[in-house]
């Protein structure tokens, strides 16, 4: 891989992406079109996030890559390896040690700091896309701040189900202006979108970059009589006992037996090594 430039992309491409990132930061929640390049991994597998990360990485960075909250999922491994090979950066599994975190579908449980950048992989950046498939139309809707269609959709959910039937990629309004898709994170993570860290969103196939600067107001859409509520499985983690984290449900036998474990593997492991225990924790050796 040494024949390629630092962090794979050529300098001109990085400049183009960097300019788009800065515009995104200047206009929080607005989707900046950018000339996404073909990456050596498939579209839909994080090419937007990878391009944003490549444009941000310096040799001094420590990179963490997660997919579904875990560092060891195959696509996270693959992307981390890509940057180890092309940028020779330090990598880590620990949220607190990382300066850049690329993520798919989760915001880490450990609170982020001002010194961190969180890069999201985004499949469909347009929150209005499922209501209106045409880019030419949704662009007008954003320009006119015409978000009635979105409220109608959410309200229809309430009329039919008694709840807003969106559990992930739950739309937010950024700084009272743009309705934004936070990428397919569970709505449990939405409150964490107001963060001291810089949050960058990259959609490679759809050629869009957007951003949420630190301390930016991010409000999950809701109604006065149906306020937004972040949801999680009402269980404790069976490995670390946490009752405040987002949980994965794991089927453990043929009889429908199941257990719940933290989706954020680093957070769970850190808690376990600090002595926290859950229902399924291995029995301690009597010392």
């Amino acid at each position, binding site marked *: 891989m040494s024949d390629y430039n630092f962090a794979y992309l050529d300098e001109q491409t990085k400049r183009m992406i960097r300019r788009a990132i800065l515009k995104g930061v200047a206009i929080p929640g607005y989707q900046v079109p950018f000339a996404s390049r073909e990456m050596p991994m498939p579209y839909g597998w994080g090419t937007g996030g990878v391009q944003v990360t490549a444009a941000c990485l310096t040799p001094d960075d420590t990179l963490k890559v997660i997919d*579904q909250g875990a560092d060891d*999922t195959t696509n996270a491994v693959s992307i981390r390896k890509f940057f180890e090979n092309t940028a020779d950066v330090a990598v880590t599994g620990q949220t607190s040690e990382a300066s850049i975190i690329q993520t798919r*579908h989760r915001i880490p449980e450990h609170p982020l700091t001002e010194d961190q950048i969180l890069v999201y992989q985004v499949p469909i950046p347009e929150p209005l896309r499922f209501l209106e498939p045409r880019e030419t139309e949704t662009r007008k809707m954003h320009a006119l701040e015409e978000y009635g269609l979105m409220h109608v959709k959410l309200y229809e959910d309430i009329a039919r189900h008694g709840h807003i039937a969106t*559990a*992930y990629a739950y739309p937010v309004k950024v700084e009272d202006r743009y309705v934004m898709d936070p990428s397919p994170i569970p709505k449990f993570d939405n409150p964490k979108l107001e963060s001291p860290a810089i949050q960058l969103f990259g959609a490679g196939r759809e050629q869009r970059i957007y951003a949420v600067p630190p301390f930016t107001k991010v409000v999950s859409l809701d109604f006065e009589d149906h306020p937004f509520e972040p949801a999680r499985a009402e269980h404790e983690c069976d490995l670390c006992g946490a009752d405040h984290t987002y949980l*994965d449900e794991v089927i453990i036998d043929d009889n429908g037996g199941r257990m719940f474990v933290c989706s954020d593997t680093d957070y769970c492991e850190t808690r376990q090594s600090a002595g926290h225990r859950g229902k399924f924790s*291995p029995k301690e050796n009597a010392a």
Partner: protein
Amino acid sequence: MYVAVKGGERAIDNAHAWLAEERRGDVNVSELTLPQIREQMTLAVHRVMAEGSLYDPDLAALAIKQSRGDLIEAIFLIRAYRTTLPRIGYSDPVDTGKMTCDRRISATFKDAPGGQVLGPTFDYTHRLLDFKLAADGEVPTANHAIPQTADMPRITDFLNKDDLIQTEVPSDETPPDMTREPMEYPANRALRLQTLTRGDEGFVLGMAYSTQRGYGRNHPFVGELRIGTISVEMEIAELGFSIEIGEITLTECETVNQFTGSKSEPPQFTRGYGLVFGQLERKAISMALVDRALRWQELGEDNLGAPAQDEEFVLSHSDNIQATGFLEHIKLPHYVDFQSELELVRKLRCEAQAAAHKEAAE
């Protein structure tokens, strides 16, 4: 006892090693060489060059070998390589009227200057498996004619002289480049043509076919189809003139479409245009039909709501690398999202059941 899933890295390494072994196949069968692929799987090589947007038969052959013959995978390899190449400069536009044609046919005139040249076509082969080929692929030498050296005039130029076909105004404007700028709608014709020429052959074919069956019907005739080679020149600023940098094979198709006129245009024929790398006439003809269908607005035709008239629909779904990637990404883990839906469905069910109970009790 449950242990969190680990070992993603080892699984990937093992998968890659196994893949390499499968690619090679039975080691008692001799390995394919790149010249074999380039010379004997030529049309596959051409498709990979056309949709990969990179004219390099040897690299296309390598990509086909590496991808085990999965052409979309091969196109992907070429695209990912192409994107890392520096842009040294831009060639002069090629004049396809100066093409050395291996094949040149017109469906609109029985004969025309330059003649009908059938060339190496499958058209009139009977599609019977040639079992001899299984044992012995050697062929007798084909007859040779004296190559024509004069330029081959375009068939549509004959119509143009009588003003019977809409004149295409030449322009020196730099066309947009979808590989360097984000796609923007509405797109101009140059951008549409660029998208179509690297679009998936199957998709463009399907779109073209739909227009023939009535979804935005536009009565096409193949005015001319030509396949041949042409030299590519580039102006070198330091020299002040153009030099030849290579020769490429192209397929060009111009369709002649009936047009009864509109408020702004008199009745005359109109054109659809297709141009692709390599010998890919199915693609070139398809492209011309779709190009013509997408011109409805410019020609003052009605929007019939046909898929092939819908620029944003056609252009944003024609790329097989984008389509494949996004389609296949749904096999990546989505259990975080699934879990959130699971919780929601449980909650909704619970409430629905409680409501049903209450109703029954009342």
